[in-house]
């Protein structure tokens, strides 16, 4: 004897009572799915319903996808809102005394001075490869004399601020997120609040200001060393005259180009310290949470740098 359940009868042969019974099964399944954290397969096996039938059921799956989509949308909106509230609180705290000069200098030293080596190394090689590629391309058109302006404009307008921003994100931004994240999970940020010391004022503001001050300065250093790197390749290696290389730069680069680069650097400084401080500030769930906060801070800051670079360029052109 084979037991016949409600699923084994073709729909056309079912009586109204059987159809109601089938609907009851479906409603029960939906209720259990909504209430249970168990996987669909487990619930189904508990109810002794063939899993192949329910797994292919379209409506519950669609419902799950919609739920996930809604959940992600809500999380994204909440996170974005929290980030902008954090930025507003930081900006509001900037002009509020007491001014902690010592903390600010410490952060300038950490973000700026201690990033000098990586900035110098990156910039010299960026300038060198730019000169190498530029010479190869320009020589096809007999325009080697434009190599100096090409390197300088690329550095000043684009590569200087963007690469400095990305390097500082990797070196200092990750450290800021990790440091604040550890402070959060070790309850040191809570301790500040309990002592009546506003954590945003004490922790976020010095880092934020240091980012605004340091990034333009590092960008200038990046530009100068990058142009020098280009000079090494173009003049010392490829035989272009120093006068040709530097003379073109002076006539091609305007103050507007320099302003554009510095404005970008200023914005990137804000993005890095804002995003990394925020991610560290709201890290959760132990070491894994700090690791996640650090990774997401670096990724988000890097993406925002590249996205905002396009829009700033479009506006400043």
């Amino acid at each position: 004897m084979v037991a016949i359940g409600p699923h084994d009868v073709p729909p056309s042969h079912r009586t109204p009572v059987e159809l109601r019974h089938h609907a009851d099964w479906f409603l029960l399944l939906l209720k259990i799915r909504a209430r249970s954290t168990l996987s669909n397969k487990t619930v189904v096996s508990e109810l002794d319903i063939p899993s192949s039938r329910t797994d292919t059921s379209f409506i519950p799956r669609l419902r799950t996808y919609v739920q996930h989509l809604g959940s992600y949308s809500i999380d994204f909106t909440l996170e974005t809102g929290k980030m902008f509230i954090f930025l507003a609180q930081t900006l509001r705290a900037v002009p509020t005394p007491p001014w902690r000069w010592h903390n600010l200098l410490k952060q300038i030293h950490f973000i700026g001075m201690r990033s000098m080596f990586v900035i110098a190394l990156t910039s010299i090689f960026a300038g060198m490869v730019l000169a190498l590629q530029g010479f190869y391309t320009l020589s096809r058109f007999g325009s080697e004399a434009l190599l100096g302006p090409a390197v300088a404009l690329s550095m000043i307008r684009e590569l200087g601020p963007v690469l400095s921003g990305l390097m500082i994100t990797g070196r200092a931004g990750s450290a800021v997120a990790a440091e604040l994240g550890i402070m959060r999970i070790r309850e040191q940020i809570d301790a500040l609040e309990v002592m009546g010391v506003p954590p945003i004022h004490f922790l976020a503001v010095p880092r934020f200001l240091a980012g605004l001050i340091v990034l333009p300065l590092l960008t200038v250093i990046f530009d100068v060393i990058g142009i020098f790197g280009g000079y090494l390749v173009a003049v010392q290696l490829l035989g272009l005259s120093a006068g040709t290389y530097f003379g073109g730069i002076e006539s091609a680069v305007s103050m507007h180009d320099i302003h554009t680069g510095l404005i970008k650097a200023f914005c990137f400084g804000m993005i890095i310290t804002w995003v990394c401080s925020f991610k560290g500030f709201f890290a959760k769930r132990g070491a894994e949470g700090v690791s996640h906060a650090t990774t997401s801070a670096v990724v988000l800051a890097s993406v925002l740098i590249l996205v905002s670079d396009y829009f700033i360029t479009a506006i400043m052109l």
Partner: protein
Amino acid sequence: MSTPSQPSTVITAPGHNHGPLGQRLLAAGYINEQQLNEALAAQSTVDPNEINHLIGRTLVSLGHLTPSLLRQALVELFTEECRNDCGLSGVPPILSMKGVEKQLDGRMVLNGVDLEIPEHRITAIIGISGGGKSVTLKHLVGLMRPDRGTIMVKGKNLYALSVAELQRVRRHISLLFQGGALFDSLNVFDNIAFPLRETTQTSEAEIHQRVMRALDEVNLAGMEYKFPDELSGGMNKRAALARALITRPEIILLDEPTAGLDPIIENAIHHLICDTFMRTRTTMVIISHAIPAIFNWCHHVIVLHRGKVRASGSTPAIRESQDPVIRQFIDGDVDGPVDIL
């Protein structure tokens, strides 16, 4: 863990401002009248609470009393006070929670908590892990916002205050975190000095004096230039306690001050809390799993269970309670009404 001995009768000495500790020491025969008068002559303060504290230290420094006898006398005094202090209904609450509910990650952690913390008393909050004790403490200092209910601190609704007012109220409260929460980038001295430097106008000379005194009180003299990662767990706790006490707050909240410590350090921390209380009469709230030891160190006990206050009352009343949940928790039975998984 040493259990405080039974208190003997206190001899009152009319006309002499010996303070309760002086009387206790005389009554117990630890010192004689002449030694006490000699110590009193060396005191400059007339504040009874200060005398209570300083007289002991002076007697120790004069060689009339050993530190262990002083601790014993303080504990006896405190135990006697706790034993006689059964009428908590007359003590005004300095902190209170009414109908507080809090849901975290879909779980109801606080489910209508009503409690009152009496002023100038030590209150212990006990309960099984995950019962909402630390969350309660975080609500009392405004680190968490309740989903429902009110929290009153010194007669003010904590969540009706502006940010500036909340910060002002918080300056009267100190919280000793379970992990200490010392700042890793600062040494012990700077950690303890931190609240004074950030929230007061105290001069550096006075800060130095107060920090060194606080370090001495928690037996960390000579450790001021060590960083938190160079200290043991017990030292970290004591340094954090010194930081919590340095601003002379009106309320001190201690989240498991003895968790993870060996019995000697645990006892030392309890003595320190007792000593601080006897000296300053600060309202203290202690979360503890040190059962039954904690019953020797508090006036008032609140039992939290499943997000609600299961019982609240004087220490003897809770200790003798026949409520099966409280009995299981006190006796540490595996079998009983409390789910341990």
